[in-house]
């Protein structure tokens, strides 16, 4: 089996400051990987380099494309990379308003990716949008409302529907549950878990919330100062952390 994503010695500097340094890992279809670390540890830089939003200074990001197999997304042409961005990849932002068009209805938000890849039948697009809104538990009669009229949790679910409608294979998530009420978080986590399982998605989730990765991620990567200090099975890293920083991170979580 070929990995879906094969990352090799990826580095990104901001001038003298290290964004992320020599990160290597692979991700197989159906796997969910968590990246944890405190603010400034380089996890968001890494995620943006992987998703093609930032150009790394060094390293490769090989993605298993449908047509050509493993291909370096860092050096591929921009049109090709952007095409991946709206077909095989999805990006769920922490703030839904960064990932949604706030002036466009929920239906239009979900339909955009379909239209971007050539769908031209209004009835079909609307039917698919309706179906996806249902899957993220947004009532059908809200389809013509703008996201500005939605609660934070609904906006986040809409963002997920908008991203998944074209059947991506790899989903990048940046703190997907950050800033939401705890009760809303739980429902969203459960939904993400089910979608990942039912659709066989691979996902990379950046978060500083260890409870989130325990529930969602199969594997875990711990970052500090731009470096990966520990990787492994999620529950193993959380229950038997080896690196001093991982131990500190795990022991710092407040118990409820």
């Amino acid at each position, binding site marked *: 089996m070929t990995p879906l994503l094969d990352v090799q010695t990826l580095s990104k500097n901001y001038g003298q400051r290290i964004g992320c340094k020599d990160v290597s890992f692979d991700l197989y279809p159906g796997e969910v990987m968590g990246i944890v670390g405190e603010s400034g540890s380089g996890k968001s830089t890494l995620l943006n380099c992987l998703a093609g939003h930032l150009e790394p200074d060094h390293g490769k990001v090989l993605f298993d494309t449908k047509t050509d197999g493993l291909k370096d997304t860092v050096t591929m042409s921009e049109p090709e990379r952007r095409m991946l961005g709206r077909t095989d990849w999805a990006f769920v932002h922490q703030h839904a308003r960064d990932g949604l068009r706030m002036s466009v209805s929920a239906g239009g938000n979900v339909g955009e*990716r379909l239209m971007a890849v050539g769908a031209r*039948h209004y009835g079909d697009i609307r039917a698919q949008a309706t179906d996806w809104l249902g899957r993220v538990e947004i009532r059908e009669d809200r389809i013509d409302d703008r996201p500005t009229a939605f609660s934070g949790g609904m906006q986040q679910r809409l963002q997920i529907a908008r991203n998944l409608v074209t059947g991506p294979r790899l989903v990048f998530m940046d703190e997907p549950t950050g800033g939401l009420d705890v009760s809303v978080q739980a429902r969203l986590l459960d939904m993400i878990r089910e979608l990942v399982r039912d659709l066989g998605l691979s996902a990379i989730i950046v978060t500083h919330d260890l409870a989130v990765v325990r529930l969602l991620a199969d594997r875990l990567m711990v970052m500090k100062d731009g470096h990966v200090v520990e990787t492994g099975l999620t529950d193993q890293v959380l229950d038997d952390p080896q690196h001093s920083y991982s131990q500190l991170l795990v022991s710092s979580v407040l118990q409820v």
Partner: protein
Amino acid sequence: MSDYNFAYLDEQTKRMIRRAILKGLAIPGYQVPFASREMPMPYGWGTGGVQVTAACLTPDDTLKVIDQGADDTTNAVSIRRFFEKTAAVAVTQSTKRASVIQTRHRIPEEPLSEDQILVYQVPIPEPLRFLEPRETETRKMHALEEYGLMHVKLFEDISQHGQIATAYAYPVMVEGRYVMDPSPIPRFDNPKMEMAAIQLFGAGREQRIYAIPPYTQVVSLDFEDYPFEASKAEGACALCGADHTYLDEVIVDDDGGRMFVCSDTDYCESRRQAGHLGVEGTPYRKDAA
């Protein structure tokens, strides 16, 4: 004749604009940046169109200027006078006799011929701006032919109004490549854009020129199940009786009384000359004002 250079602009500026026009003709629908000059009129009054017209005019040309189809509105009259004064060219109200026609918001009803140039005044040249305000991003979208967003706008229309409600500035795809804003002409005029004449578009404030060469394919965007329709008001012109032209609605009294008349004044008049008569029209007399 005045002390102005021919057609107001200096020769270097006209050359620069002509180069932009040629580039625009070579890449139909592509927005060519140009160094728009200050003109002796406010932005929004056709500064782009005037510059393009100035670059096209020769002393032998006959100029017609229309605003929403009419030759006798303020904007049309001012621009016509401007070129009479600065270029001393012949002017006309007849579509057939004109070699250069500058227009705001309409295409004449009379089909144009290969020896004519139609110059449009354009307020906002970027059709994607409604949904994507970043110019860097829209340029990239044009370059990469990422036009899904344009359909999102039409999708929103249908969702909210049950049909595509965009009535003017209806986006078109030019020669299968560039999505273009046809300027705020009614969508009734969209099918006419596949024509024999050269079409030039000038946006002064936005500093963009674009063009459609003769006989170029211009397709109005739509959905398979909501096809494009070149709609107009139901009814016929009250003056000339035409039921195939774009009509303006005119309120005639305080009781909601109204009538429809041709928006193209020259076309309406020539029909009446030819003996056509609408329900409220009077037979044509040469001396009638």
